[in-house]
Structure formats: structure tokens, C-alpha cells
């Protein structure tokens, strides 16, 4: 079927801010689809509230709206742009829900517009629990016994009829929000009532528990003519019970015979056919491990995290093909871009094995429960490709960058057999290490399997790795042993540790014995056809097929690895733009990265893609083959920066700012010298190594002080200490991971935080704009609301900021990007942090100023000057609108995590509010972040003593909007003394009704709770905040955020103005 020519203008809905369960995969899918639509001559209107995405670039879509993803906003965009079609299947659950609402509310009809890629009926049949169940029953596809309930009583009654445990799945939520397994009535009531509230339609599915069955997924595609294919199947190593996003996953399935494989494949195809999906779809199955019995767990009628993984695992571009299908093409008309010879109507065949590991945020949320359940907790993931499973596992492990590069973990070796047996029962992110230790301790496969339900095949593979550890530790290192260790991807570092040799000695032995990495191609067809797209992975013991190309100058772009808190999608934006800019300048580009969710790992971004861990050894393998003329590290976040030294040792020139200068910004003493030389003040501080030194330093500086390790990202481990006990605790936490670098202790200064991104060509600087944080210093910049242009500083301060930026950039010999954070206190400007690299705010500031600073930085790195690029150096003219970046958190997914903001970053994503006025921009930003008020007009205020002054005005203003204010005794008295009618409510330990009852009654809109500083935070506050978050109540922990929110509520406008970013 040829293209449907009535489709001329398409509105593509993005997925909004990055939250747990909805990450970069939708930027990848959306970007690929938009490019594919534009290739077909279709005009693309894009809406997404997330400014850090590539899809919101003006070269990706024709009209770009970085606006809140709400139905009224979408209606306004449709009314203005008049698209003939809306494509909702690329924006995750958020996009699909919006598409559905647009249809249900008659908005599409009103504007003579239609959904493409899916239909409201399809969405409903796949997403509505009851309709889905009926559909499955109609085509005889089994689902677990289940009932959709709308109240707790029905849930209890049904569960009593099928027996505990039961799985609870709220309808229309993403990442399994609010779901869980209930083993008894108490748990059932808790999870069910929470789930009912979180579900958009107030429905929760209560389902027979099939935990322990094999979890198998199929990615399938269907076109408008009814042709169906399977792209890939995947087997979760963690059986049913752990969310697939938190599971270790292997593709293709390893323990299924052809009978099981085809049975589930046929089922998946029957389902996609019955649902009449046109595009991609993900079907999750539970397969009984000891029979052919299976159940359909879930169907996602859209592109998903799994489809991004399947695309990268096979080379089959699901989103691109889905976009072409939406335009009317059939699978046999769409060419396979990898082979160029075949068509999209075939099934990829792998001749390798892919292993995905989730990246969990427990390093950031040390208090959070590490238990893995049906509710997703991972912020990102890594993928590794190898021609054996063991190798894939080892590569994926080290790609995580969690200081672990083998199955040897912490002090597990010292645990007793009984302790290990007990630990095996815990389903958390460390289970794989516990299994390895269990094998070391001689616990039988059968026992491990009985406890974990993990298939024996995988346990044996872990055993093979453990046996190799033991062989390396006990046997002479022969050529055969070393070759075998490398075949299963033991890094030289681990081999060195186990054999008692140095890494260098191992490398020399490898050179002597000719044991080197070879690269194989991902070609979708197991070498059956010759492929043209250079997408490679490394293996040992095989023939190399990556050709070292020459001719053009060659640049290595190092990606940023898995998405984690502090290093998100923004660095992928930077890496991709840098790659494009190098390409434009005539360079051959090579990307190295391991994150399957990203645009940078799409096979057609760079000239060559190496899907590899970002460790020195893995990168060196590529360097030895490719011999690049240089490497860029300043765009890939801390992951890439950490490789600088290793790259220099390999003889690869670092393009742009030199490694010494990067180091100078991180090394306290060097940096202090530079500041002194530039005559720039900074809060006084000291470097220490021990706890005693830290306490001494704190006394010298005076409390409060900031304590943090150097060379980290996202303020990891950074804390404000107010006494010696805090210092002891924080240093203890920091030192849990061996520190190669000193710990920094700084005087904590309360002031306005200002952030600047600049491009420097070694001489001149270009500052696209100055950003101001709404929250005062002490809250991590990534968690602060950021305002462009800065509005509360005067021209003189601005001039000082520009001058300091210029001095610092020149002193550090910056070539490329630099990010500086300042504190302005009492009219004085202090520097608090300098990063001579790209930052989190780069995409945001680029988009709102229209100045493509990554491209400019890349040109500067190549040798152009800012003037040659057509820019006048210095601070650029301010835009005539405000753009506000709002952090977005995923606290509701992380049980036990403290949500109070501080110097350590906690947000997972961000959204933008852009408007002519500050108030409207702020309002948009809050809406974009999902804070839609008022609802019940009731709020709770409890603040620490130091905030009592300032809260009065805020409370008064909320009162003026009609809010009923509840407070505990101290705050209530203070407010009443100041004329605010605050109602007193009991503290937690007091009788009901107390604060908690109020929250659990679902009538509270908002909690303002500012916790006292230091380690000893009130346990009450923690409980209040957690309960509020888990019942879906907005919680603000900074007085400044509260002030911003009330300002935005006071200036609420019905009709928002729209700004097309593409016109900036």
C-alpha cells in the first residue's frame, strides 16, 4: 500500500520530562520517527515539555512547542497549527493517554484531525483492563485470573476467591506506578488504595500471582494491510515479579525451545492482529517454567523502552518503521536501512547475544528500599553485545559505572553460607552478586534455583564466570587461560587483580600472545546479507570485520553511558549535536556508548557506532583499531571526562580543553591558585582526606559547611553539615567507596545561585544567557528551578559574572564549553563550581536563546573563533520572554527515599515553561511538572525555625486564594500570631486525627515542609513527606519553591500563549 497522501501535517506528541519508567527511549523513538516523517515530505509539529530532548530541536521538526503536555495546551496547538493527523504512539504512556483524551473529548473531530499509528479503540482494548481481558478471551489467549476493581472491598472479595498472593496493576499508569504484590490483606489494602488513586480512571487489576514464571517479551510490528512480523524476543533473567525495566534481560531468549518460542510468537502476532495495531507493539508473557502454560501479562500498543532495546539489540529501527506504517506504507515497501537489500518485512536474526542491565538509583537514595518489585525503579539501563552470554554479562556489568567490573562484590566473600542463603531470598539489585557468591560457597544450582526461580542455564553461566575467577586465582596464567578469560570478557584489571599481576603485565601478555579484541557487525541478518551500516561490538577470539577507514580526519565522541540521576539525557543531546557538527565539518565520526535508550546509539547518527562499555580498556580496543585523530570528552558528562587521562596515555589527543585544565578545575589547590590569579572570590574551603581533618576544617571555616567528594557528578555525596556528628556520618558514607581524590569541605553560603554556560575559543567567550535559580544555594542546581534571563540581579552583577566567566575560561584555556556556578550574596559574586565541559543546562539554554552552543563549541574545538562563527563575543542580547526550567522528580517510585532537597541531586528530569511574562512561564513550568492546583484547597505547612519569618507571607497569600492551612503547633502558633488563620493539627505521635490522617484522607493539595539541616532530620518530617508523595500529594521542601508556586497560582491564566521554538 503506498503512502497515504492525505497526511501532510502531523502533530507528534512527546513523552515529557524524564521520570522513572519513561526515559530517553522516547526521545530516541520520537527523533527517529520525526526524521522519518520529514524524509517523506510530511510537515511535523512537535510538542514535548522536555527541553533536554533532541526531538525538540528545530532541525528535527518544523514547528516545535516546548509546552506543558495537557489537553488544553494540545488543543491550542492543534487550533493554531491545524495538523491533519496526530501521532501519539511515540510519546510513551503519556503521549498515548493524551492522544486518547484528545479523541475522547472530541477535540480531534472538532479540528478535523485524526489519530494515526493507532485508534482510540485500539488504545482502549490494550490499556483498559476489562476490555483487554475480554479481547484476550475472545482470541483464546490466556491471561491470569483477574478482576478489575474500583474499590478496595471488591479487591478483597476477589482475592479471597483466588487466594493470595495477588498482583495489583493500576490502569493507565507508567512504569507500573502504584502496583505491587500483596501477600496478605494488610498489604492488599495498602497497595490497592494507593493504586486506585494513581490510576487515571480509578481502576486496578487484581490478578493471580504468577511470580516465578519465566518472563518473556516479544516486539512485534503490524502494518495497515495486516502483515505482521516479530522484531525480537527477550527473556528476563529475573522471573515474573520484577518489573522488566528492573530486570536483567537477554535477547534473544536462551532457554526456550522452538516449540515455546513459536507458541509465544504466534500468540503475540495474534494479539497485535486482533488489536489492529498499525506500528509497533510489545507483548509480555509469563511462561510456566515446567509446562507450556502461559499468560499474557501486558500489551503496550506503542513504542516502549523494550522496543528501543529491541531496536538496538537487532538493528531494526522500530520507531522509524512505525512512522512509515502510520503514513500508510506496508512492511514489504519499507527498505531495511541496515542491509539496504532487504525490506522491513523480515525478522532479524541475531548471531550474538545481548544483555541489558538496569541502572538503579540506590547510590543516590541510600535510604530507599532496594527491593525490586513490579514497580519500576531504574532510571536507565545499559546494553552489551557479545557472542557469548557470559561476555555480555561482564560487559554490561562494567558499563553500569558502579565501581564493579566483575561478579566479586563488596564483602560478600566474608559472609557465611547461611547468610548468603538468606540474602538469596532478597530480590534486589545485588542478587546477581549473591548468586555468584552462593556458587563460590558451593551452594547447589538446584537450591539457588529453588530460591530465586532463575533458570539453571543462567546460574550455570554465572558459575562459568566464577570458575574463571577461581582458575585465574589458582592456576598459572597460560595463553589458553587468558584467551578464555578474555573470550568471556574479563577485563584486564580484574585478571590482574586475580592473578596478582599488574594491568600492564596482562596487556603485554595479550600483545605477546596475540589476544586482542575484534569487532563484529550488527547487521539484522546473521551475516546472510552484506550490510552497509557500521554498527559494531567487540569480541575476543574472532576475526575482525570493522574496517579501519581512512581519508577523512577521524574523531572519537565518547557518550555518557546509562541515564542516572545527575547525568541524564542532556549529555546525549550534547554528544549527538557534537557528532553532527563534526560530521558537517568533514570529519569521520565515531560514537562509543552503551545506552540503548539514546539517540546517540542510533546507527545513523555517527559514521560508526561502537556499542561498548566506556572503560579505558574497552575504549583502547577501539582506539587501537581506528587510530582516531582526536577524541572529544567534554560532551559526554562525567563518564567521558573520566576517560580523559586514559585516552591521553593511549596517545589520543583530547580535542578542546586539555586534560590538565579539566583537572585544574577539579583539583582544589590548582583551582584555588587560578581563582587567586584571576582575583575571583570563592567561599573558603579546604581539602581533607580523613574525618578528623574534616572536623578540623569545619571548625576553622565555621558551620554550616558543605562536604563532598571531588570528581563526582550531580553533587553525589554532597551534604550540608551543621555539626561534628554530621561530618562523621557524611565522611563515612563518602568513604564507602574508596576515594582516589580528596574530600572537599567548604563554607556554606546562603545566597542567590547563578549559572552560566559559555563557549570559549581560547580568547573570547560567548555567553548565550545567564540563568538564575529560584532556590537559594544549598539545593543542587539540577533540582532548582532555573530562570532565564536572570531577573533579580542588576547590570553591575551581570557585568561581574561575564568578566569572571571570561577570566576563568581564559585561565583554564577553555576551548569549547564551560559551565560556572556562582553565588551572589550581598552584592558580591563568588564562584562555587566550574566545569570545563557541557552541562545539564546546555540543551535548555540553546533552545531558549536559539544559539546552538554545542555546534559552536564543536566549531571552536575544530579551530574556528567565535567571531568567525558570526557572533559578537560576550553576553548575548536577552530574549524578550522568560524560559523556566523546572526539575521533575520520581519520588513516588522509590519507597523509602527522602524527598527533601539538598546539595545532592535527586531529580530525574525537567520540563520547560516559556512565555512572555515571568508569571506565565512559571505557571507553565509548574503545570508541565504535573503540579495542577488547586483541587481541594487544603494544605499543610510545617517549617523549620529559620523559615518561620518567610513562611508568613507565603501562607497569607495561599489563604487569600482560599486555602485552608493546617499546621503543627509551632508553625500554627507563629502563623496565627501573624494573622494567618492556621488550623492546628496533631503531630504524628499524637492522637488521631493527626497530620498523617489528614494526608491519607486525600483532601490535601500541598505540603510545605522544610526539614532542618544536617544529618539528624526529624523522622516525623520524613514520614509526612513520604506519605504525601505516595498518596500523590505535592510536597515542597524549599521555601523558595513555595514562593514561586504561590506566585504562579496567583497569576493563573486560562489561555496560555504558545511559543514556537523553531522561530527563535
Amino acid at each position, binding site marked *: 500500500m503506498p503512502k497515504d497522501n492525505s497526511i501532510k501535517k502531523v502533530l507528534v506528541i512527546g513523552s515529557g520530562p524524564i521520570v522513572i519508567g519513561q526515559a530517553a527511549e522516547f526521545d530516541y523513538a520520537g527523533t527517529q520517527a520525526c526524521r522519518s516523517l520529514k524524509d517523506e515530505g510530511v510537515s511535523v509539529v512537535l510538542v514535548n515539555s522536555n527541553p533536554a530532548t533532541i526531538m525538540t530541536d528545530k532541525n528535527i521538526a518544523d514547528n516545535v512547542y516546548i509546552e506543558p503536555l495537557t489537553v488544553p495546551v494540545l488543543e491550542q496547538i492543534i487550533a493554531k497549527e491545524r495538523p491533519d493527523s496526530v501521532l501519539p504512539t511515540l510519546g510513551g504512556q503519556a503521549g498515548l493517554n493524551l492522544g486518547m483524551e484528545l479523541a475522547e473529548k472530541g477535540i480531534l473531530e472538532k479540528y478535523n484531525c485524526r489519530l494515526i499509528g493507532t485508534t482510540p479503540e485500539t488504545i482502549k482494548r490494550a490499556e483498559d483492563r476489562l476490555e483487554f481481558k475480554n479481547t484476550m478471551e475472545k482470541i483464546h489467549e490466556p491471561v491470569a485470573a483477574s478482576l478489575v476493581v474500583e474499590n478496595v472491598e471488591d479487591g478483597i472479595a476477589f482475592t479471597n476467591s483466588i487466594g493470595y498472593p495477588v498482583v495489583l496493576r493500576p490502569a493507565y499508569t507508567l512504569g507500573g506506578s502504584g502496583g505491587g504484590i500483596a501477600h496478605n490483606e494488610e498489604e492488599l489494602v495498602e497497595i490497592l488504595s494507593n493504586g486506585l488513586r494513581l490510576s487515571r480512571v480509578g481502576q486496578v487489576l487484581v490478578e493471580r500471582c504468577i511470580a516465578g514464571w519465566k518472563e518473556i517479551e516479544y516486539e512485534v510490528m503490524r502494518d495497515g494491510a495486516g502483515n505482521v512480523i516479530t522484531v525480537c524476543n527477550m527473556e528476563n533473567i529475573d522471573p515474573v515479579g520484577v518489573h522488566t525495566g528492573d530486570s536483567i534481560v537477554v535477547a534473544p531468549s536462551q532457554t526456550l525451545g522452538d516449540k515455546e518460542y513459536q507458541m509465544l510468537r504466534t500468540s503475540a502476532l495474534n494479539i497485535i492482529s486482533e488489536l489492529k495495531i498499525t506500528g509497533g507493539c510489545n507483548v509480555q508473557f509469563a511462561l510456566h517454567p515446567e509446562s507450556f502454560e502461559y499468560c499474557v501479562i501486558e500489551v503496550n500498543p506503542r513504542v516502549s523502552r523494550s522496543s528501543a532495546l529491541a531496536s538496538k539489540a537487532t538493528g531494526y529501527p522500530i520507531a522509524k518503521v512505525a512512522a512509515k506504517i502510520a503514513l500508510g506504507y506496508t512492511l514489504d515497501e519499507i527498505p531495511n536501512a541496515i542491509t539496504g537489500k532487504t525490506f522491513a518485512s523480515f525478522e532479524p*536474526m541475531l548471531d550474538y547475544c545481548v544483555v541489558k542491565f538496569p541502572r538503579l538509583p540506590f547510590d543516590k537514595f541510600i535510604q530507599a528500599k532496594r527491593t525490586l518489585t513490579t514497580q519500576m525503579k531504574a532510571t536507565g539501563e545499559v546494553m552489551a553485545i557479545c557472542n557469548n552470554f557470559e561476555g555480555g554479562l561482564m560487559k554490561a556489568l562494567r558499563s553500569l559505572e558502579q565501581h564493579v567490573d566483575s561478579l566479586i562484590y563488596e564483602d560478600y566473600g566474608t559472609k557465611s553460607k547461611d547468610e548468603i542463603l538468606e540474602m538469596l531470598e532478597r530480590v534486589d539489585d545485588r542478587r546477581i552478586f549473591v548468586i555468584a557468591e552462593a556458587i563460590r560457597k558451593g551452594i547447589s544450582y538446584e537450591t539457588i534455583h529453588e530460591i530465586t526461580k532463575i533458570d539453571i542455564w543462567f546460574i550455570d553461566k554465572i558459575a562459568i564466570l566464577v570458575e574463571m575467577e577461581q582458575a585465574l586465582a589458582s592456576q598459572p596464567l597460560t595463553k589458553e587461560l587468558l584467551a578464555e578469560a578474555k573470550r568471556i570478557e574479563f577485563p584486564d584489571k580484574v585478571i590482574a587483580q586475580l592473578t596478582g599481576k599488574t594491568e600492564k603485565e596482562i596487556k603485554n601478555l595479550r600483545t605477546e600472545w596475540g589476544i586482542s579484541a575484534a569487532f563484529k557487525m550488527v547487521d539484522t541478518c546473521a551475516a546472510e546479507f552484506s550490510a552497509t551500516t557500521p554498527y559494531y561490538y567487540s569480541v575476543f577470539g574472532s576475526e575482525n570485520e570493522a574496517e579501519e577507514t581512512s581519508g577523512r580526519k577521524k574523531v572519537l565522541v565518547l557518550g555518557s553511558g546509562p541515564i542516572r540521576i545527575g547525568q541524564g539525557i542532556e549529555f546525549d543531546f550534547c554528544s549527538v549535536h557534537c557528532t553532527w557538527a563534526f560530521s558537517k565539518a568533514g570529519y569521520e565520526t565515531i560514537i562509543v556508548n552503551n545506552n540503548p535508550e539514546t539517540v546517540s546509539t542510533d546507527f545513523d547518527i555517527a559514521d560508526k557506532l561502537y556499542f561498548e562499555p566506556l572503560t579505558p580498556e574497552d575504549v583502547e580496543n577501539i582506539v587501537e583499531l581506528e587510530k582516531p585523530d582526536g577524541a572529544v570528552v567534554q560532551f559526554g558528562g562525567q563518564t567521558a571526562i573520566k576517560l580523559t587521562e586514559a585516552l591521553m596515555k593511549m596517545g589520543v589527543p583530547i580535542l578542546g580543553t586539555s586534560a590538565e585544565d579539566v583537572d585544574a578545575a577539579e583539583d582544589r589547590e590548582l583551582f584555588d591558585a587560578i581563582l587567586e590569579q584571576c582575583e575571583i572570590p570563592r567561599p573558603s574551603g579546604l581539602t581533607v582526606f580523613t574525618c578528623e581533618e574534616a572536623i578540623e576544617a569545619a571548625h576553622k571555616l565555621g558551620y554550616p559547611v558543605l562536604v563532598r567528594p571531588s570528581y563526582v557528578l550531580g553533587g553525589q555525596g554532597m551534604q550540608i553539615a551543621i555539626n561534628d556528628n554530621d561530618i562523621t556520618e557524611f565522611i563515612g558514607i563518602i568513604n564507602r567507596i574508596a576515594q582516589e581524590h580528596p574530600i572537599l569541605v567548604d563554607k556554606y553560603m546562603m545566597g542567590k545561585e547563578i549559572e552560566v554556560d559559555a563557549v570559549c575559543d581560547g580568547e573570547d567567550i560567548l555567553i548565550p544567557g545567564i540563568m538564575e535559580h529560584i532556590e537559594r544555594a544549598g539545593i543542587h542546581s539540577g533540582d532548582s528551578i532555573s530562570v532565564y534571563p536572570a531577573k533579580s540581579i542588576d547590570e553591575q552583577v551581570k557585568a561581574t559574572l561575564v568578566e569572571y566567566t571570561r577570566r576563568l575560561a581564559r585561565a583554564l584555556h577553555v576551548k569549547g564549553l564551560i559551565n560556572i556556578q556562582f553565588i551572589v550574596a550581598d552584592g558580591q559574586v563568588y564562584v562555587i563550581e566550574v566545569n570545563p565541559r557541557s552541562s545539564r543546562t546546555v540543551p535548555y539554554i540553546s533552545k531558549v536563546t536559539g544559539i546552538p552552543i554545542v555546534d559552536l563549541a564543536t566549531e571552536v574545538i575544530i579551530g574556528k573563533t567565535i567571531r568567525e562563527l558570526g557572533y559578537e563575543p560576550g553576553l548575548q542580547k536577552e530574549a524578550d520572554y522568560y524560559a523556566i526550567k523546572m526539575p521533575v522528580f520520581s519520588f513516588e517510585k522509590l519507597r523509602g527515599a527522602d524527598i527533601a532537597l539538598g546539595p545532592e541531586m535527586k531529580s530525574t528530569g525537567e520540563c520547560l515553561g516559556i512565555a512572555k511574562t515571568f508569571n506565565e512561564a512559571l505557571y507553565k513550568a509548574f503545570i508541565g511538572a504535573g503540579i495542577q492546583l488547586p483541587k481541594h484547597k487544603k494544605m499543610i505547612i510545617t517549617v523549620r525555625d529559620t523559615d518561620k519569618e518567610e513562611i508568613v507571607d507565603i501562607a497569607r497569600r495561599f489563604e487569600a486564594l482560599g486555602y485552608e492551612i493546617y499546621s503543627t503547633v509551632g508553625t500554627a502558633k507563629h502563623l496565627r500570631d501573624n494573622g494567618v488563620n492556621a488550623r492546628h493539627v496533631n503531630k504524628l505521635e499524637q492522637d488521631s486525627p493527626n497530620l498523617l490522617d489528614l494526608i491519607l484522607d486525600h483532601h490535601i493539595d500541598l505540603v510545605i515542609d522544610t526539614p532542618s539541616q544536617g544529618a539528624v532530620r526529624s523522622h516525623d518530617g520524613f514520614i509526612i513527606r513520604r506519605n504525601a508523595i505516595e498518596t500523590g500529594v505535592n510536597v515542597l521542601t524549599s521555601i523558595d519553591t513555595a514562593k514561586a508556586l504561590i506566585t504562579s497560582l496567583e497569576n493563573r491564566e486560562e489561555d496560555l500563549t504558545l511559543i514556537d521554538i523553531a522561530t527563535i
Partner: protein
Amino acid sequence: MFVFFFARRRHRESVAANFIHIRKEMVERMKAFLILEDGHVFTGKGIGVDKDVISEIVFNTSMTGYLEVLTDPSYAGQAVVMTYPLIGNYGICREDMESKRAWPDGYIVRELSRIPSNFRCEGTLEDFLVENDIPGIAGIDTRALTKILRESGTMNGMITRNENYNLDEILPKLKEYKVTGVVKKVSCTEKSVLPGEGLKVALLDFGAKSNIADSLNQRGCEVTIYPADTPAEEIIAANPDGIMLSNGPGDPAENTYIIEQIKKLYNTDIPIFAICLGHQLMALATGCKTYKMKYGHRGGNHPVKDLQTGRVYISSQNHGYVVDTEQLDPEIAEPAFVNVNDGTNEGLAYKNKNIFTVQFHPEACPGPQDSGYLFDRFINMMQNR
């Protein structure tokens, strides 16, 4: 199912107990060599039995279904390379066998799983190779080998554990080798019947995969399986409702006697459905030609387009020869299916006849079941006759 359950339990325990032993065995495996007729030599470890074998080397891209591949008689006279690197993961489940034994002359894999795991597993692939007297080689770069076969075309090779092999002696022998007489080798020698209450189908066994008969039998047919060299008269005399021509190995043109018989069957009005070799033989019987493809189609991911409906189906395939539609008399037959990847013929519809034939395998096993509807079409054809 419960029987398998217990069988598996016992097996697993023994596997776990023996695993140190298995590991040792892996290390002590003998070196083995795969020598190709163009002089390439791959060094790996011997698996299966220790004997030298010369065969035609072909690759199969299926990711599951190694047992079905091994027991597909169409591989007689060939040594099979599996492009998927991890083979033997779920062991051997005998009910999945497509014939009574394994047929390839040799078996080539990247890695043989040291323990199998599946609830139906009854043994290891290694033991199965030994039981079927098949030599093999593991641990070689199967992707590099596949690329050679793809670029140079299917070629002959030798698997040996003799470290002192002499290329000057071996290469001429390799060039000489030709797959012949394989249909006779794989076909049954005696007639047998799968009882059924419905239509009577005569199945000519040129090396039939058992799921062809099973697919018909499951649809109620009584299937009588005849040896490949059964005279047409005997089949016609049995008065079947339809005739099924099976898949099978080798060069179709070599089967001159069978082609003669099929000509006679064509001239009756008995509905005929043919798969793979059967499809090629029917084409030859009606004056068309076949030719040998560069490296054939072997795997479970081949898209075929039904030219009548425009629908594309993913099919299971295993063939090295193909019908040359350039030579097709449009009065006799017209293409019914075409391969979406390379445009080669995948099926023919015979004019004014109740005959249709396909190159691919609607009986699947291994591979997708998407084209199973063709058996229903055959049943309809027989009913409406």
C-alpha cells in the same frame, strides 16, 4: 506434561552433579578442523563423534530449533553451520524430532552449551550427535565462515580431527564431492498410515519432515506415507482425496524417475499440494527448470509474499535450489508466492488444476507457523473437488 516434569527433575539433578565432570571434558576436547574447498581452515574443538567427513557446508540462521534442523531429512548430504552462537541450551526433546534420526553429515557451532535446561529436556545435544554418529566442530568463528559462504557461495568442506591433514590431498577431494542419491537415502522404504477419520491424503516421502503429515493428520486427514519411488499408478489406484509432495534433500533434477511419476499425477485431477523439493519436482515435471542458488535460504525469517492477496508471511525455509520462473510456461502455472528479499520464486499456482506448490515450509518446525493456513487451503481444495 507431568511425566516430563519428573523426567526433568531427575535429569537436572544428574546434570548438576556431573557438571564439574562436564567442564573437564570441555577442556580436554580434541582439536578439530574445518577445511573448505577454497583452502580456508578453521580450527576448533571436536564435538560429536571422531570421524572425518566431507560434505556440502550450508548455514542456517534459526535462533531456536536446532533439533528440528538436525532431524530435517533435507539436510542429508550437507554439514550445517548454525549462525546463532549458543546452541544446545535446552538440550534434546525427542518429541520435537522431525524424523527418526539426524541427517546432516556434520554439525558446526560456535558454542555448545555445557548444560541444557528445559522442562522437557531428555539429554544433551552432544550425546545426540554421538548417538547419530555425527562429527562436528565447535568454537570456530561461525560468522566469519558464514560470510565466506555468503560471498563465495555454498561450498564443500571437511571436518577432521587429524592435525596432520594435507591440503594438497584434501582440496581436490573436496572439489569433487557432490551430493547425490540422497532422496533414496532419506525416504521411507515401506508404506505406512497415520489413521484419521477425514480426507485421505497420499504423502510422497522424499525426506518428509514429520510435521507435514502431522499437520494434515491434526486436521483430520488419514495420511498414507509412500516411499519416494512409489509408481504413480499405485498412488492413483489408492484413490486418495489429495496428494502431498514432501520436502527433501539434494538436486531436484537428479530425481528423473520421480519426476516421471509426478507427471502422471499431474495428469490426474487429484488435488496436489507440494512443499520445497516437492514443489521443485512438480515444476520440473511440467517442463520448468530449477537452478542452484548461491547459498540458498535456510532459516526461519524469510518473508514471502502471497501474490494473490499481497500479504507477506514470515516463513521457515531450507532449500539450495529454486524454480526458475523465467522458464515457466504461463499456460501451465503462475507464480503464487515470491521472496520479498531477493525476488526468487516461493510458490506456484497451476492453471486449470487443483495444484499449488510452495518453496517454503508451512509445517514450520523449526520456525514461524504463519503459513499453516496453506494446509487448510489444501483441505478446502480436496473438499471442493
